[in-house]
């Protein structure tokens, strides 16, 4: 079961949101250290896949299986999945008024560390590593003392997701349009961080519409999602073709 070749194995996943069926049947394999790019038109189900895998209570898995590191992912609640090493970067990260960013991230990190059997970090040790990570990502240190995402610009919120990714060091990171709202330096920071973590074995599923980012990430696989199904699977060439001709054309070509 616990083969080193697959970290995440998804089979025929069907997901409803409220009364609406969004994912029809999705199957997917992600190996440790691999990078999968997920493309698809708006509403094709990309964000739904991430939220369902992360265990959002409004995204109901109707049928199908998902194994994470040999464990039944769907039997775990949201926080258990996170502690097992699954990280989702939100397309629109919410704010938490009055809660300082460093307290929030330290609480998260210590919850994850506890699950790994590591001792919790105290405020000082945490701050030291958070400062280093922030510096590497080009984040102002002051951001650690501000309330979580409160009054942050879209780009700042995304950088804050990156900071959490860097500190939590998950085994699998689902990045949902991490580049949207970010400036050039921000996108460069994404690429740098993904490369570093990938070298340590972290796997990625990246949702993006931005070819330049996708090329820089050197994906192993590119998937196109269409109406809740994986419509096409390929490599960088597929991403380039979609960037050239668009999703509508891609759908016609396959349908033909």
């Amino acid at each position, binding site marked *: 079961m616990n083969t080193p070749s697959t970290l995440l194995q998804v089979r025929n996943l069907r997901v409803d949101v409220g009364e609406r069926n969004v994912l029809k049947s999705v199957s997917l394999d992600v190996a440790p250290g691999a990078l999968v790019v997920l493309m698809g038109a708006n509403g094709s189900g990309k964000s739904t896949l991430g939220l369902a895998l*992360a265990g959002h209570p409004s995204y109901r898995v109707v049928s199908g299986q998902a194994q994470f590191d040999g464990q039944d992912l769907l039997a775990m609640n949201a*926080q258990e999945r*996170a*502690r097992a090493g699954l990280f989702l970067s939100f397309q629109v990260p919410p704010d*938490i008024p009055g809660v300082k960013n460093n*307290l929030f*991230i330290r*609480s*998260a990190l210590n919850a994850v560390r506890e699950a790994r059997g590591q001792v919790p970090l105290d405020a000082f040790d945490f701050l030291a590593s958070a400062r280093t990570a922030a510096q590497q990502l080009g984040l102002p240190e002051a951001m650690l003392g501000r309330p*979580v995402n409160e009054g942050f610009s879209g780009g700042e919120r995304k950088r804050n997701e990156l900071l959490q990714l860097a500190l939590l060091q998950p085994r699998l990171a689902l990045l949902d349009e991490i580049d949207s709202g970010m400036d050039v330096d921000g996108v460069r920071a994404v690429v740098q961080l993904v490369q570093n973590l990938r070298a340590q074995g972290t796997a990625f599923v990246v949702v993006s519409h931005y070819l330049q980012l996708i090329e820089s990430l050197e994906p192993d696989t590119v998937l196109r999602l269409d109406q809740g199904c994986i419509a096409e699977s390929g490599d960088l060439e597929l991403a380039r073709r979609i960037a050239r001709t668009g999703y509508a054309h891609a759908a016609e070509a396959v349908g033909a």
Partner: protein
Amino acid sequence: MQTTEQAPALNQALDGLYRHGFVTDIESDALPPGLDEDTVRAISRKKREPDFLLQWRLKALALWQTLEPPQWTHLRINPIDFQALCYYSAPKSLKDGPKSLAEVDPKLLETYEKLGVPLHERARLAGVAVDAVFDSVSVGTTFREQLAKVGVVFSSFSHAVEHHPELIERYLGSVVPMGDNFYAALNSAVFSDGSFVYIPKGVRCPMELSSYFRINARNTGQFERTLIIAEEGSHVSYLEGCTAPQRDENQLHAAVVELVAHDDAHIKYSTVQNWYPGDEQGRGGIYNFVTKRGLCAGQRAHIAWTQVETGSAITWKYPSVVLRGDDSSGEFHSIAVANHFQQADTGTKMIHLGRNTKSRIVSKGISAGHAHNSYRGQVRVARTAANAGNTTQCDSLLIGPNCGAHTYPYVDAARSDAVVEHEATTTRISEERLFYCRQRGIAPQDATALIVGGFCQAVLEELPMEFALEAKALLAVSLEGAVG
């Protein structure tokens, strides 16, 4: 012979008690239930009070008999039979408490553990009969010596009546008149004990004064009376209460707190109230009906109330400031939590009388379970209060679908140059915020505590630091089981 004054009713009742098999010296321990002039005389006599105080109590009793309990609150209160209550019991012998922690309600002990109350303190809070009162005795003593050096008086109310009767006579009832309201009148007639603080001119009190350290605080809770006087240019910070729930068999608490700040004096009064709130079904719990008021008597005087109210089945409490001195200022910072079937009707009154008087109100109400939480605040600007200003920020946080939050702001401005600002928000702990925390590995309970802590941050910052940490832990414990 004072015993000859005893009315037949009282003797009858005493006999009644005796027939039930009590062999203790009733005269020195407790009065029978019921309240009339004889009860008040007996209380005063037991406490060996000067005549002015007895007369004052009797006047208060006469007023109380003409008053009705307030009906304007958003509270459901079971009728209280005031003639069935007992109005005096001397501090209990330690023998009456549980003999060891093994005899204490395990749920209470569990809460102490969660709050991180040190082991030796747990026993004291739970009312365990122990011979030595631990370190607090020595803490209390060194404390008192240090205060005496700078002329600060910090004692029990009874002690002050004995040693500073002139101050008591001058200030008692000067801020909360005996007939102010039903419960204040009741307290004025029968108050048992409480705290007294006097800060001389120009003195900055060298430490936070805490009723927690006052050893004689046992069993004085029901009708407690506190009086704090800050002379010109003095500063004092007073902490009341304790974050750990205290064992208490009294159902009704009707305390009165009076603060007097003269020219340039600062008084900061912080409360953490965590009386027994009743169980998950709403059975039992303390009725906490308190009148707290501060008077900025002098120019540039400043009074700030900060309260964290998590306990009691019902809380009815409006710490207020009368801004009489020109350029004086008042603040009210409040966190009120109501979970399960708790009810809170709390807020403040800011009465602007002097010129250039300013007040600020920050209220954070949290409701969970089936609880109801009301903010009730009044800002009054008198004709004499030129250039007065108030800002009110009133936020409510709802956890779950069955609770309620209500806001009743009253503004009464007699001047057109008054600037009165009111801002109110109501939010829920949104699923998105909760999921965000959970996706980062944080359990729902911890996430709720984080979110609530953030919501309350502006008020928690007003508390002395150590207290703020305890209060945060207390918020988490109070809301346990509210989410997830």
